[in-house]
């Protein structure tokens, strides 16, 4: 967190639609998000909240039927939306890297792992193939894979090892920003911890900013400085990790915390948030969460809530809880 007051990434008013046969899916709606140098942000939300779409938008990798409807994405002051394709390619992999959810499918099955790492290096650096290979082997050692496994193919590795290779690819060119899209969802718990530990360590060492996309609040508590809670294509609450965990404000956030099973309580049923995420083709006019919210009033159903700063650095988009000064749990 060397100079986190300066912003590395600034997303303003981003909207992304998927135009499908069954209607337009409003995947991301007027999203605002910013990230400082060296900062790590947890992007939390349930399936379909638009987390991955946001990540792909930052990389400018949204393809048909996805469309950018509005917004600017400033990365180091340059608007990714308007950059020519050639410069986007230089940024992808070189300055922003992405780790995908399933490590087994994000590696090419017919290319050895060392060549896949060397490929990124030679795409972004003016380097001879031999030096690229040397550097790739160094990267493998950094993520804890023995050099004698360098010429193996991805199917000869376990899921956790594959994710290490993916991390090596992502960090091979010292990117400014690393986007990890549920990097541990496909791994079992012990490997999860190892991979998270590795990511945390490398992030510190290389001073990379991190966007950690997850639906696991535990991972956020462990790795992130700041959290943004996403619901139906928008950020509903953003705060420092500690502030969010001690004073969750938005009814959705408190619902998320409540739905984590508690060993001490005697209740037989889990506390779930009633209802489902709204149909992304038919978002409510007002607050997207209003249909499921116990605090919803008439004005919630009519007006889009705006973000209000309730504590320093703690923003929430819910006028009702702001008025009441928080939800009692």
């Amino acid at each position, binding site marked *: 967190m060397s100079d986190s007051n300066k912003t590395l990434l600034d997303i303003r008013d981003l909207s992304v639609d998927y135009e499908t046969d069954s209607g337009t899916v409003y995947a991301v709606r007027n999203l605002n998000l910013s990230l400082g140098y060296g900062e790590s942000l947890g992007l939390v939300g349930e399936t379909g909240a638009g987390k991955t779409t946001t990540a792909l938008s930052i990389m400018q990798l949204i393809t048909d039927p996805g469309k950018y409807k509005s917004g600017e994405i400033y990365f180091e002051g340059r608007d990714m939306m308007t950059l020519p394709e050639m410069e986007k390619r230089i940024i992808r992999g070189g300055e922003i890297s992405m780790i995908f959810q399933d490590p087994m499918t994000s590696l090419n099955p017919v290319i050895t792992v060392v060549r896949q790492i060397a490929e990124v290096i030679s795409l972004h650096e003016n380097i001879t*193939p031999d030096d690229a*290979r040397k550097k790739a082997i160094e990267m493998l050692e950094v993520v804890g894979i023995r050099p004698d496994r360098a010429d193996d193919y991805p199917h000869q590795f376990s899921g956790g090892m594959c994710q290490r290779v993916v991390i090596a690819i992502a960090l091979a060119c010292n990117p400014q920003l690393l986007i990890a899209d549920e990097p541990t969802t496909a791994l079992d718990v012990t490997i999860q911890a190892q991979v998270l530990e590795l990511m945390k360590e490398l992030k510190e060492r290389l001073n990379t900013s991190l966007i950690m996309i997850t639906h696991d609040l535990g991972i956020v508590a462990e790795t992130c400085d700041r959290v943004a809670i996403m619901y139906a294509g928008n950020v509903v609450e953003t705060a420092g990790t500690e502030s969010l965990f001690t004073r969750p404000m938005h009814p959705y956030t408190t619902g998320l915390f409540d739905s984590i099973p508690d060993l001490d309580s005697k209740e037989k049923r889990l506390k779930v948030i009633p209802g489902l995420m709204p149909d992304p083709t038919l978002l409510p006019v007002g607050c997207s969460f209003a249909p499921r919210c116990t605090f919803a009033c008439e004005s919630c159903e009519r007006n889009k809530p705006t973000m209000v700063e309730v504590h320093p650095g703690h923003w929430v988009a819910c006028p009702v809880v702001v008025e009441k000064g928080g939800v009692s749990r």
Partner: protein
Amino acid sequence: MSAKSNENLRGVVLRFSKNRFAVLGLILIILFCLVAVFASHIAPYSYEEQDLLNTLMPPSSEHWFGTDEFGRDIFSRIIYASRVSLKVGIIAVGIGMIVGGILGAVSGYYGGWLDNLIMRAMDILLSIPSILLAIAIAASLGPGVVNIMIAIGISSVPQYARIVRGSVLSIRSQQFVIAARAVGGRDFHIIFKHILPNCMAPIIVQATLGVAWAILNTAGLSFIGLGIQPPIPEWGAMLSSGRNYIRDFSYMTLFPGLAIMITILALNFVGDGLRDALDPKMKR
């Protein structure tokens, strides 16, 4: 670079050599190629030398495979014919595979109007029977070995385009392709380095079968006078000229038929072996 590519190449060679049928196929193909190159040294007679006193002779110690209706030695003709047939078969398939492969890959990768344009054009070509198409192309280019290869190559383009497009479509949406874009790969790089190596299996199978198809089609074209001009021998043409005598002198069709069959079998063995050897998952 050299160290690692040697390593991989050695793996492929090792896996290939473990497949006995593939090795047998390769030996046969090399043998046929040597025969083609040294035809003039191996053949006991010239391919056009007629011996009108000894027409339609059955196989004997003098004429191993017998003689045809003009008294030409069938053994010598088959040896000389391997030159034309192998060349036409392999080069025609090469043309079809490269042109069709590129069209199919571009079509499958980009999709949209480009895909529509290319694939509708391929549909038009496919709606014409391929032999008719080859006849039309050969007729407009005129007879000759090179023109035959072009005609047969072009008429096989749609098949390769379809196969490659189908494979590319299934590979394109896989995560490692998105990941390759996410590290800044260019489209060209992604198509040729990430997608096509993953669709080699159906292409190799189609190509090895395609050689047989090309040799037989050359025969068809030769038969109607658009292909290889007599007296230059060619397996397919020998097969079709022997057809008139098949009742009494079946060896006239038997030997060129065997030559085609063995070539195709050998190519299929090699194709299968190659497909398995190139697939790293087959490695133990």
